[in-house]
């Protein structure tokens, strides 16, 4: 964002940049920066809170009144994200003949469909669509069970895209299964990787891929850098 601010300003546009990481704004020195210590992924701070979002915009646009720069100011309120797993139950075991993650994913399908109906759009679809999620989890289970990764038939052929699709399927479904507030941080992520069979399977397959000698880019980006 700071690079684009420099480029746009040089082209004759006035810019105001939100930064979530103060040191980046300090070092890159774009014309006008409002540093917001909000949960990452929420540059306007709070969902479904128009008053707060307007406050962020008002403070950002006030920087346009300055006569020279660069200008870097801090939003006075820190919004702390909650890192605890989202309070959201997972479907009970239904078909014991299926791998747990496959069974679980099937159980979440109605919730996923409700989410899709509500939003009209889904982030699932880079490697597999929703129909392909259970089978994809079966493939990942096979890798954990010893199938060489090159012979496993990884759907879409891209592990990062596949992991993103599976996680999006779960996180979108989760929003339909809980009334608990999602205050950001890594609540949805923590729920996925700590409470669901699919999340645990992705962490396991990451280890299995590494143990099989797969190149680091094949497995590393399947989960956040700090999860093992």
């Amino acid at each position, binding site marked *: 964002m700071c690079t684009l601010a420099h480029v746009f300003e040089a082209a004759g546009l006035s810019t105001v940049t939100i930064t979530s990481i103060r040191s980046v704004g300090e070092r890159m020195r774009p014309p006008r920066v409002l540093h917001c210590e909000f949960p990452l992924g*929420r540059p306007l701070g709070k969902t479904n809170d128009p008053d707060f979002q307007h406050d962020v915009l008002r403070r950002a646009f006030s920087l346009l009144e300055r006569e020279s720069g660069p200008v870097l100011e801090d939003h006075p309120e820190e919004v702390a994200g909650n890192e605890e797993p989202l309070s959201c139950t997972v479907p009970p075991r239904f078909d014991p003949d299926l791998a747990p993650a496959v069974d679980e994913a099937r159980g979440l399908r109605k919730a996923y469909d409700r989410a899709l109906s509500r939003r009209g759009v889904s982030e699932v679809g880079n490697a597999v669509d929703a129909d392909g999620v259970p089978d994809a989890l079966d493939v990942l289970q096979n890798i954990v069970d010893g199938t060489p990764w090159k012979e496993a038939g990884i759907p879409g052929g891209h592990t990062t895209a596949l992991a993103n699709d599976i996680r999006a399927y779960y996180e979108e479904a989760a929003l339909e299964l809980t009334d608990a507030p999602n205050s950001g941080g890594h609540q949805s992520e923590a729920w996925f990787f700590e409470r669901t069979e699919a999340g645990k399977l992705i962490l396991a397959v990451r280890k299995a891929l590494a143990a099989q000698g797969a190149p680091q880019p094949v497995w590393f980006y399947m989960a956040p850098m700090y999860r093992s």
Partner: protein
Amino acid sequence: MTEQPSGDALIREQIGKLPVPQFSETAWTAPPPLSEARVAVVTSAALYPRDGEPFTVTDTSYRALDHDQRQLVMGHWSPNFDRSAFGIDYNVVYPLARLDELAEQGAIGSVASKHYAFAGNQPDDVATIRHDSGPACAAALKADGVDVVFLTPV
């Protein structure tokens, strides 16, 4: 709360250590009065329309987003940040409803007809957006009469 450092804190620490592009000087364009300014949003959230072209893993291009298109996919490839917020309320990343309200109140002049999205995960030298796709996006914004660009990360 967990006793471990938070995911956000770790990511801030890691990203804060990364080298950043250097600019020898900071360009400065004086805006018109905000009540007369045409405002656009440009985000690094890799947003694209439902039926549009997804971002690839090393994508340095951008997508134009029609003002009225609100069914958008967040196509960012990084596993490290919270995507759920955008699904709850797109305004927390892409505040077009808020800008429309400001335009109705007369606080800003108008809201642009098109907005733009880049992918946040750019090559370290950001050469393409600095010299190619960034200037091209600036030209498109200016062609729409935009005065002020509000830039949001994820």
